[in-house]
Each structure stands twice: as structure tokens, then as C-alpha cells.
């Protein structure tokens, strides 16, 4: 037997397990059996064991912008935040629109040997929104979904075809819902705060009108669509009204916690797309996760080097990091404050994304994949620029004291992260 984790609080909401016990792992799988000695033993006293977290929306920037992040530093950031699987977006330079690049990412991540990395292929060639990518080739090379993330597929006819064609593989198209004509040169959410600060705004209709279009296209084509980083109350209302298993969606930790009034200090680390919306939108987002209307919490981890962020607000790049703070900030601000149960949060971070994207899921059950995260929920840490494993420091949560320190990450039965050290 490879690994024995004892005295740990096993927490697996999918299998309704919530008790202190022992977990045995051999050859990458959870096994039953006698508690004989194992090659490695972890004493999990006082710690919680969760299914390994899965992020379906990260940017590792490789190839093309290695000064922001690489597959190696991105993987480290992921593991430090408790993620055992990460899906990486194809808005790299060049974009991931061919099998060669898919293989490059897979090989590179195997070399790094930390979390599992799943490439997402582009919907259109060169992410230009005109011609469909060679989806079948991309799928066979290992893509788990298709997306032109960062840009919306504005041409509805192209989107329609993508939704129809992807039915071949039963994987979703991830759309970045944003009408670029409505958001134009906007810098932040259009509303009373943008009016006060004098910024050109990104109205919520720039998102919700495209959400409506995508839902109707999915209904029409019966293709699967996954709505990335949903942020407005109207989007949630549309998702609720058209509830269908073909349409799934995700929300980011920052859209669950922060609102546009945070920008009054002009902090470039509060600038991202979609922008931070109003306090009301934030409340609607929290309720949507609580009610299961939005199934997935995804980070939209968007690392940028300081010279693209340490600028006046309007010049700073859009995007914030998220992998390392995601669980702790949601646990501290939502679970500890009674706004969300731990069970719903863990599902949104593990079983729900695995289900939608058909990814390996850690479960406390015989024969399941041994991907787990062990967390000290009482541990307190402060988010400072020194703590990140990511190359980038552009977190909107800098300065916060958070509860929840990831102690171990186990991927495929192998301990790859132990008390701050990476073991590849």
C-alpha cells in the first residue's frame, strides 16, 4: 500500500461523508482493507481531507507570456491553493488552436509533475471569431473544452456552428459573455461608482445580453454551453428562467465577494473582466451558488507582471490571480460567516466541475481516483506579495487575513505538496 492518511476529518459531500477516519490509497486509487503499514503515512489530526479542487478557468500564460506565469509556476500556485486539476485557457501566444500546442502543454505539465493540467482548445482559429478550430483534432489531442476566452465569440452564426459541431464530442463550449460594443473602452462596472469616479463603464447588459443569446443558441442547437465568470444579477435570472442541463455556469471568488465600490481607491488589482459589479449583484451571486443555480466556482486566475499592473487604473491590464486565495477566501468570508455551507463550496470546487468537464474526481470511496487536498481549517495566514508561488502578485485580496492553510495535495495517490514543499 502506498499511502495511509489517518485521524483525518474525511469530508466528501458527494458521498455524504463527514467523519474522522482513515483513508488508504494504493496505485493511485482509494482502497478498502486492513490498516496494515503503508509506505507513507500522514497523520491528519486536526485536518480536513477534501476531494482535490478542480479549476476549470486558469491562465498559465505559457507559451507567450512566461514573464507572467509558466506551466511550472502556475502548477505550484494551483497546488498551494489545494487544486489537483486545472484547465488552462487557450489565450496564449500563439493560441492553443492546434494539436501541437495541446501536446506541448500536456508534456510540459507532466514534466513539472504537480497538478493535472487539462488544455482547453480555441473555438475559432487564432481566436479570431471567424472560422472554427479543428475541434476533433484538438479533442483527440486532449482538450477538455473549447473557448475563445478573453474574447467573446461575437458572431452568433459562428457560435451556433461551434455549439452544433461540439456535439460530436459532448464537451461544452465555454463562452466569455461580453458584447464588446457595449463594453467598448469601459474600465469598470457602469453604475453610480463609475459615474462618481469618471470612468467609462462596462454595463451589465454587455454580459447579460450575450448570456441570453448563448442560452437561446444552446436551446436551439442542443449544444452544451458553459458560461464563464458570470457576474450580473440579470445573467443569473436568465440562467434560472431557462434552466437546462445543456447550460452550465461558473462564478469567480472575486465576483462572490467584492463589489465596484472597492474601486474607489483606484487599486489596479481590482480591475478585471467582467468588472466587479454592485453589492446587489454580489448577493445574487452568493445566493445562486447556494441554490445550485451556478454550479462551479472557478478562479479566472489571470497573472500579470507588475509592469502591466502597477499602472494608473485605466492603463493597467484586466485580470487578477486567484488559485492561491480561492478556497481560503471563500471559506473565511462565506462559510465561516454562515452564507454558504462547506458542502456546497466543496462541491462547487470539485465534483461539479468534474461532472461538467468529465475530469477525474477524488472521492472517499473504493476505487475512486486518489486526488485529495488536506487543509488546516484553523490555520490563519495573511495574503502578502511574499507568499505567492505564482509569478504574479496581482491579487485583489492582498492584505487580508484568511483561515484555511493547504497542508497536503495528493494527485493520483502521490503526495506532491507537503507543508509548503513541492514534491515532483
Amino acid at each position, binding site marked *: 500500500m502506498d499511502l495511509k492518511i489517518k485521524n483525518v476529518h474525511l469530508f466528501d459531500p458527494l458521498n455524504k461523508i463527514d467523519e474522522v477516519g482513515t483513508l488508504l490509497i494504493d496505485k493511485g486509487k482509494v482502497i478498502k482493507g486492513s490498516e496494515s503499514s503503508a509506505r507513507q503515512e500522514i497523520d491528519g489530526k486536526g485536518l480536513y481531507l477534501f476531494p482535490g479542487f478542480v479549476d476549470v478557468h486558469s491562465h498559465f500564460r505559457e507559451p507567450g507570456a512566461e514573464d507572467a506565469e509558466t506551466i511550472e509556476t502556475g502548477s505550484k500556485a494551483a497546488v498551494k491553493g489545494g487544486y489537483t486539476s486545472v484547465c488552462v485557457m487557450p489565450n496564449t501566444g500563439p493560441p492553443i488552436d492546434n494539436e501541437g500546442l495541446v501536446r506541448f502543454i500536456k508534456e510540459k505539465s507532466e514534466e513539472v509533475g504537480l497538478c493535472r493540467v487539462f488544455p482547453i482548445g480555441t473555438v475559432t482559429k487564432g481566436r479570431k471569431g471567424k472560422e472554427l478550430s479543428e475541434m476533433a483534432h484538438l479533442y483527440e489531442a486532449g482538450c477538455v473544452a473549447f473557448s475563445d476566452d478573453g474574447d467573446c465569440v461575437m458572431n452568433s452564426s459562428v457560435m451556433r456552428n461551434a455549439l452544433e459541431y461540439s456535439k460530436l464530442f459532448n464537451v461544452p463550449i465555454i463562452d466569455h459573455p461580453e458584447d464588446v460594443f457595449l463594453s467598448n473602452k469601459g474600465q469598470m462596472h*457602469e453604475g453610480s*461608482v463609475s*459615474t462618481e*469616479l*469618471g*470612468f467609462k463603464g462596462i454595463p451589465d447588459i454587455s454580459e447579460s445580453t450575450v448570456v441570453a443569446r448563448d442560452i437561446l443558441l444552446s436551446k436551439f442547437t442542443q449544444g452544451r454551453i458553459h458560461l464563464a465568470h458570470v457576474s450580473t444579477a440579470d445573467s443569473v435570472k436568465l440562467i434560472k428562467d431557462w434552466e437546462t442541463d445543456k447550460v452550465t455556469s461558473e462564478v469567480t471568488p472575486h465576483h462572490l465577494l467584492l463589489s465596484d465600490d472597492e474601486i474607489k481607491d483606484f487599486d489596479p488589482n481590482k480591475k478585471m473582466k467582467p468588472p466587479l459589479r454592485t453589492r446587489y449583484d454580489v448577493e445574487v451571486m452568493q445566493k445562486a451558488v447556494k441554490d445550485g443555480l451556478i454550479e462551479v466556482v472557478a478562479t479566472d486566475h489571470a497573472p500579470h507582471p507588475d509592469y502591466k499592473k*502597477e*499602472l494608473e487604473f*485605466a492603463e493597467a491590464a484586466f485580470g487578477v490571480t486567484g488559485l492561491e486565495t480561492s478556497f481560503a477566501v471563500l471559506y473565511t468570508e462565506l462559510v465561516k460567516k454562515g452564507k454558504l455551507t462547506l458542502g456546497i463550496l466543496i462541491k462547487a470546487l470539485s465534483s461539479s466541475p468534474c461532472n461538467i468537464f468529465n475530469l477525474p474526481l477524488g472521492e472517499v470511496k473504493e476505487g475512486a481516483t486518489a486526488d485529495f487536498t488536506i487543509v488546516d481549517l484553523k490555520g490563519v495566514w495573511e495574503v502578502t506579495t511574499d507568499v505567492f508561488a505564482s509569478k504574479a502578485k496581482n491579487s485583489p485580496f492582498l492584505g487580508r487575513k484568511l483561515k484555511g492553510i493547504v497542508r497536503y495535495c495528493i494527485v493520483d495517490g502521490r503526495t506532491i505538496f507537503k507543508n509548503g514543499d513541492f514534491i515532483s
Partner: protein
Amino acid sequence: MGLDRKDLLGIQDLSIDEIEEILTTAEHMEEILTRPIKKAPTLRGITVANLFFEPSTRTLNSFTLAEKRLSADSINLSAASSSVLKGETLLDTAKNIQAMEVDVMVVRHSMPGSPHFLAKRLKASVINAGDGCHEHPTQALLDIMTIKKNFPSFKDLKIAIIGDIKHSRVSRSLILGLKKMGAKITLCAPPTLLPLWLEPFGVEFEYSLEKTLPGKDILYILRIQKERQEESFLPSLREYIKNYSLTYEKLRKFASKEVLIMHPGPINRGIEIESRIADSEYSLVLNQVTSGVAVRMSILYLLTQRKLYGSKD
């Protein structure tokens, strides 16, 4: 008493007491401007850099004169001559200037929050000389000073601001400042030039100029930018003039006899305001300009006292 702050970034974060102190000090500064030698040695040894990343003549000249009147040394850096064009970041530019032992930076920038961004990262005092469509605090203060000289109290003073409210930093600062002083404000503009979200400002609005004019003590006319037509905010300048240009005829027909006219300049004669009014006894435009130098002297003085003699604690 005293301005115990490093920077002056906006009217938003000034208390009424601070506004009053700036204005009181400015009134005394105005006295210096009437002397035969219009200069005091107060800021000898203080260096001020005027960083103007957006074209401006009026505000830059007003600041430069204020600096000279108080004997500060000053340098001007405009966007055209700056390394910003060579790809240097704003922060790097400012840090380079600071490294030359500059005490105060007066910053004009086309992006909201740029002076705030610099203020947080620099030891030098930062004065906002206009940031995008956000704030223009020294303009609002000089306007408030001009009004104060003409009216005994701000309470229930009725002021209409007419023109491109949406794209105007002057209107934002002025609204915030006048509200703090207790005035009643009505905004008048075509719907495309009014922000959709006005609740935080606590002001009334009116699309019709004819309905706006009666009963007002002051009409504050904003400059209309010709670009607004190209950006499809206005069908044509001609149509704006028809509905919103303040003409002598409209003034006599609808406005009170004692009404006073203000304008932040530069004036587009014949567009937002008729020439005849701009030069009439109704107009406070040139008084505004004089107050401008005094207000800027006052701010430079109050901010640098902290630097010269330490903060109160």
C-alpha cells in the same frame, strides 16, 4: 485647524472645515496679488513639478503663477516632452522627478485616479490638477471662492450646471463641493450628456433649458467639446446650440434679473454661451480666473507647511 494631509486629490475627501480653511487662506493670498511686489518668500526652497500629461494652458499657467508668487521653484513637464511617449510608465516618470528632490507634484492626466495612484506611491505631495472625467478640485475651490464673494451664504443657493455633465470633471468636483456647502443644484443637459446614475450626487436634473433658468442664482455653463458629435452623443452642434446655448434673449426672458454666470473656460463663444453674455455684467468668468491663482497659492502653502514643519502629531 490646518490641512494635515499630504495630498489634495479631490473634493470628495475634503471636509467642510478643510474647504473653509483653504478659502480663508486664499482670501489672504489674494491680498498678495494686489501688492506692488506680488510675491512672498513663503515657499523659498520648495520645488514644485507641474506634470501635465494632457494639454492645458489655463490651469498650468495658474499653478505656475501661484508657485512663483510664493517663491517656490518650479519645473513644467508636458506630455509632449515627456518620456511617457517613449514608453516609460507614469510611475517611473514621477519617481524620476521625485529623485530630483521635488516636494510637490501637480498632476494633470487624462485617466481618472492617476494622481491618486501616484500619491499612494510617492513621498512628494500630489495635487490633482484634473484627472480624466473624475475630479478637478482646484477648479471647484476657485468656483466656490468666487461664489462666496458674491453671496452671503451657500445655504439654499440655487445653482444650475448646464452642459456636458457626463464628461466633465469640473461638474463632478463642483457638485461635490457645492453640496458640501449646502447649495441646491440642478443639472441641465441632453440625456446623452447626463450620467444615468445621479443618486450619489443628490442633485436634480432637467432636460429643458427654459425650465432650468427661472429662479436660479447662478448659471454655471460647461464647455461643450466638438468631439461629442463624432462620438454620437449629439446629432450636431447646431442642434445643441438650438436647445442649450445660453443666449441673451433666453437669459432675459427666463432667468432672474440678478443671476450670475460662471464658466470654467475656455469659452466657445456662440456655442454654449452667447458672446454678449460672456462680456456682460452678469459674468464672473474673469473673477474665477483671479480666484484661481489665490486658491492654488493657498493649497500650495497649506500642503507644504506640513512638509516644512512636520505634521501635527
